């Protein structure tokens, strides 16, 4: 009787045990799932999305509306990073205030600094404002490795895309062909937007970039036969649209715009912040206003998350325009990828620079 009972018990038990083991096995067995990529900002997410294509699921810690300098590493972020197959950061100390606790809390050894699945997208980009000499905090929030807002130069987006593609090829070699193809497509569409489709198609984006870097693009374009044949038209794209404003002086709120102004030859004559990360003081603001008057500055460019009152005040005193321009993908509802981010930036800034002074104040 006792024996029977125990057999009955085990009869009931076996299916449960088998079901449990099956669940465990399916849980641990590798599934053909897309690569989970978590990035610090939406811009890196947008580039990663373009490169990973259908093989990747991409998320970011910051939304496009947040200031990436000041993010609170929440426990739910740690869960995102825990599950990530690849962590991509902007780097250059942009995330220094929150990346440490985030990666520590995620308990994912591979995504820690130096790990195979930790990618610093800044490693190959062209850096600006790398301080020469000693940095102290008396200078404000100066980044010892240089200004980290490098994605505002389309060339750096191109370089970062290559770094991302290389890393994806390494961690998921079976899709390497697709990643390379996606990289080529991303570069191509970026080059079309940068130089105009005709030029970029005929001469190749990379060649035009080389010429631009060496300062030979203008001469090269002058040398083209003006016969109206396809590809020999004038400079188009972002570069073409910004060309009339070369050398124009602008004021920015925070030093986030140097990569954009450097690439499109605008001159930042003053910053609203007396030192990086320090809000404008009245005396500094009055100096900025004097400079704006003297240099006939047409535009004050700033990110949406800063207080716009000082900029409004300066604008009302000088007749300049305040351009509140998103710095990141997702900063406005229609900015869904990297190309629309730059489209929007070029739109907003060129529009502000081409209008005459709203009031004719000296």
């Amino acid at each position: 009787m006792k024996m029977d009972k125990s057999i009955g018990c085990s009869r009931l038990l076996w299916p449960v045990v088998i079901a449990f083991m099956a669940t465990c096995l399916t849980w641990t067995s590798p599934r053909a799932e897309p690569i989970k990529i978590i990035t610090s900002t939406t811009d890196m997410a947008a580039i990663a999305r373009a490169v990973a294509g259908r093989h990747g699921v991409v998320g970011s810690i910051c939304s496009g509306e947040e200031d990436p300098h000041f993010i609170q590493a929440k426990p739910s972020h740690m869960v995102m990073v825990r599950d990530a197959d690849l962590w991509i950061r902007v780097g250059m100390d942009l995330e220094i205030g929150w990346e440490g606790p985030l990666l520590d809390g995620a308990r994912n050894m591979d995504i820690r600094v130096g790990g195979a699945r930790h990618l610093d997208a800044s490693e190959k980009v062209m850096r600006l404002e790398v301080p020469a000499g000693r940095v102290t905090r008396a200078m404000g929030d100066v980044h010892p490795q240089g200004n980290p807002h490098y994605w505002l130069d389309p060339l750096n987006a191109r370089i970062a895309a290559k770094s991302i593609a290389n890393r994806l090829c390494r961690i998921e070699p079976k899709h390497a062909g697709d990643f390379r193809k996606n990289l080529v497509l991303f570069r191509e569409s970026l080059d079309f937007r940068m130089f105009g489709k005709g030029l970029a198609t005929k001469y190749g984006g990379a060649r035009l970039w080389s010429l631009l870097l060496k300062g030979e693009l203008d001469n090269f374009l002058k040398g083209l036969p003006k016969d109206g044949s396809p590809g020999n038209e004038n400079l188009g794209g972002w570069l073409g649209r910004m060309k009339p404003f070369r050398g124009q002086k602008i004021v920015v709120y925070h030093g986030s715009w140097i990569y954009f102004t450097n690439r499109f030859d605008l001159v930042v004559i003053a910053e609203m912040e007396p030192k990086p990360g320090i809000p404008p003081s009245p005396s500094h603001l009055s100096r900025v206003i004097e400079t704006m008057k003297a240099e006939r500055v047409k535009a004050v460019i700033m990110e949406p998350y800063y207080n716009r009152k000082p900029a409004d005040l300066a604008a009302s005193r000088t007749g300049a325009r305040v351009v509140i321009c998103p710095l990141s993908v997702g900063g406005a509802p229609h900015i869904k990828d990297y190309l629309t981010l730059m489209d929007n930036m070029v739109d907003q800034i060129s529009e502000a620079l081409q209008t005459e002074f709203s009031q004719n104040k000296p």
Partner: protein
Amino acid sequence: MGISIRILLLSIVLVCLSASPLTAEEKGAQTDALATIQEQIRELKEQMTRERRAYETKLQEMERRVETLSKKMAEKPEADPEKSLEGDIAQSTADAPSSGPETVWSSVGSAIQSMNPEIAVSIDTLYYNDNTENGVGEIIGQVGGFGHADSHEEDHGHAHYFDKGFNLRLVELYLGAAVDPYFTAYTTLGYHNGIFEVEEAVFQTTCLPAGFQVKGGKFLSDFSRINRQHPHEWDFVDRPLISALVFGSHGLLETGAQLSWLAPTPFHLLLGLEAAQGDNENTFNNIGGDHLPDHSGPRLLVGWLKCSPNLPNRHGLQMGLFGSSGKNQETDDGNEDGTEDHWLDGNSSFWGADFVYKYDAPKEHGQGDWIVQGEYLYRRIDLDVVGHDLNPALVGRSLVKNQDGFYIQGVYGFLPRWRSGLRWDMAGLTNEDRYPTGNWDDFGTSCRFSGMVDFSPSEFSRLRFQTSYGDWALADGNREDFWQVFVQAIVNIGAHGAHGF
């Protein structure tokens, strides 16, 4: 060259011959010779043209080759413009104005930095005053139900509270680095009241699979937010009342080990278990000696659980539950003659819950941000009398103490860089001691209300003004109310200390 020399010689011979005076025979022989010479010249001419042609074709071929080569060379960058662009990028990066001798300096600097631990120093100073005669430090040792009635505990409490006037509250030196791919480690050394001591000295694993982590050394227990934070991270100057009364001025700071596990749940769920020596004088005390058993460690176990739902960006919430049990011993001086006369041995335990909610407003420098946090804690001490010089009949009878308390506080950024906050503290909502004699005491409830305003010129400096009003129930049955004023300055230098949630 050879051909032209030969032609030259022939022509010289010809000229010589024609120039000399000749006989008829000689003339006949001359014409023959002339004919052969002419023949030879013709042959030579033919040879010359042949060779010239060969040279010309060779030259043409070489020209063609050069042309194709130069074409190839011209075409080469077009074969892979991406490669040449990369070269140009490297070139212009090298040409960047910041390079030069400074690059050497910065690479040396970064090499030095990368080989050394992160170093940070926080200096926490304050001006303090209150309207009591002997200072709140003395009163805190007399709050009913908490702490012992004996005199050395009062001294102890006093030593760690603030003096009226200026206080160098704490100078904290932090050193931390990755040990190797498997461990990280840090230590904080604190200077306070003339003593320089190791506050925390911790190593923790980074390599364990499945969300596990082991931490060892001397560390602040992670059971609640206020306990694991260092004083310079707090939103108010002083420790919440319940924490100060139950754990003393250092909090639950123990030598031990911790195992924690990040569960594979879609939301954040962290579970932790700590085993520690149990050297907290207020709640987990080990005295030993002649009259009390000497328990070997670990004498304290702490378990906790933290859970964070996935809220939208800008909102963060963490809720925690905790519980603990450990050995405790007390000695008392019943007749107040200056010598201990009875000894107690048993267990202490505490349990409770805490939460923190943070809102990150879309404005700069903390404007509009909220932090709301609170904690409830219940403590029970259950001891048996193991020796009694005055009344041996009480040996074996028990002393039971039940105390609880909570705090809740909110901090709001009302301007960029400016915050204000309110805190409400209560201790002793349950506050009863049941003595071995069968008597019992029900002490009253102590409460305190604090308001603060702080200004942070940067992330590395903070100035704070705080005022508190307390109304505390003392062990002798009286109540004492008082006002406190704090003016605090905290500065941090060195490595950027990123704080956890």
